């Protein structure tokens, strides 16, 4: 490989990594949005109750599970 091909390959892989990080941040932001609405229903305190904290954590995992299931289900109908 010549120097500029190496540069391009390296840049490509750096960009891929930034893209992965950005997509992960986006997913966390979207799920936080949804789960905040589902779990933080009362007034805002100076800390989360244990119920609120576990609701948020469960909500995130269930959301990820549902996302996967919908893709699988969709694929099975093709």
């Amino acid at each position, binding site marked *: 490989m010549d120097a500029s091909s190496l540069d391009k390959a390296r840049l490509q892989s750096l960009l891929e990594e930034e893209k992965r990080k*950005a997509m992960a941040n986006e997913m966390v932001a979207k799920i936080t*949005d949804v789960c905040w609405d589902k779990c933080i229903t009362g007034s805002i305190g100076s800390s989360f109750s244990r119920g609120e904290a576990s609701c948020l954590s469960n909500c995130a995992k269930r959301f990820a599970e549902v996302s996967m299931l919908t893709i699988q289900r969709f694929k099975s109908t093709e």
Partner: protein
Amino acid sequence: MDSFSSSPSMGSSSSSGVSTEALMDQIKTQLAQAYAQEFLETVGNKCFAKCVTKPGTSLSGSESSCISRCVDRYIEATGIIGRALFSSPR
């Protein structure tokens, strides 16, 4: 949000003369700014909805402190979600 990672060795230049490091720094900065902007907009919307139920001619003391707590809680919630999704499973 992640911090910059920089290679200790000298940067390589493309044929146009812009180093890969400089380009990546620019891209990371712009990504971070776009993320921060979106985050602030979301938090503002959520906390307005939670704390300002009957808008008056100014924000009351309790509305202001609710907003402060709400921002803290939303940041905390983001951390909880991030760990729930990306920490090692049970």
